């Protein structure tokens, strides 16, 4: 998942539920995602992951200004988040 602009959503910017092997990152080209100002309804993270997410990686994104925080991975397993 690269190069996306995800902004101003009422809830979470990115919702991952038991997603395995996905990369949300800029890669070698630095084409990360911009994930900002989500959670307008009151609760919303930049990236919210839950369940078994083995092999998934979050790295190299511009994540800012999200209502409830940038990352919520408490209920996820196997995901790597590099901030």
């Amino acid at each position, binding site marked *: 998942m690269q190069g*996306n602009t995800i902004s101003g*959503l*009422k*809830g979470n910017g*990115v919702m991952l539920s038991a*997603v395995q092997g996905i990369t949300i990152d800029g*890669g070698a080209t630095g*084409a990360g*995602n911009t994930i900002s100002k989500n959670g307008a309804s009151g609760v919303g993270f930049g990236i919210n992951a839950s369940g078994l997410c083995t092999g998934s990686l979050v790295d190299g994104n511009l994540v800012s200004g999200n209502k409830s925080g940038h990352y919520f991975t408490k209920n996820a397993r196997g995901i790597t988040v590099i901030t």
Partner: protein
Amino acid sequence: MAAITKGAADQGFSVNTMAGVTDRVRILNPIVTKGAGSVAITTLGVGSTQGIRLKASVTSAGASSQSYSGAVTLQANPMLSSGTGGIVFSSTLDGASSISLSTTGPISLSGNVGSTTPLKGMTVSKAASMAVQAGLILSGTGTSTGANGLTIAAGVNNVVFAPTEAVRTISKFATGSGIALLGGSTASTVQGITIIGNFIGLSVAAGTYTGTLVTGCTLSGNSRIGISLTNARSIAIGNTKAGGNTIATNLWGIYAIGTLTGTTIRNNRITDVSRFGIYLNNAAGVKVGGALTNQGNSITNS
């Protein structure tokens, strides 16, 4: 017109009025040709009370074809089944009914469909290809629970909506999908369609969709999901060259679940979602955006 079910082993059927706009050909009972007999109906009649008034089903087999050269108005929900010669509508097709098409050959819709009176649905259960070359308007008002607008069965490949300024709208299938792809459909181009006010705008079921692209569509006001992908492999939802889709004011913009190897979601504009822009649920193999220019999606609320 009485049923045609008896006669020679190879028995076709042809009507050519060509006298004037008030001509009328009414098909009130089923037509079943023998052998590879084809059906050809030609008239200059126009309007809902003239032209070809199609109430019953038409069946032909073998190498047969069916051609409807004149304005067609549905008066019931007919099923047209033909052989390798295909099914051709060379003029308009209207009527507040649904139609089912099945052929081992190509389907061609070269006139506007539903532009005067929207159809209540179209189902393509078998075809070698399908070309939609003009407008298409389907409306689900009054249809049964779960009814879809345009249903494309598994294995129907080469479904192409030609690039045109014609109006294409599929709306108000409140408990079904505007467009339902029931299985693998390869080498297809779904473009230039406004899909609005359905339960799901476009639903793509399990299968391989190599070479199939959804581009230039507007999916808005669908009460549940703009685009739903379930184990749909190798389909492109927007791309850099042809452009993406506008997906607005749905509860969820794009919902993807299951094995989606080779599927890409690129260059789309997703706005004003009530819940999720893109929801990946137990999804694998899908690429959302990309490193190159215009591969990323814009997912925002205004």
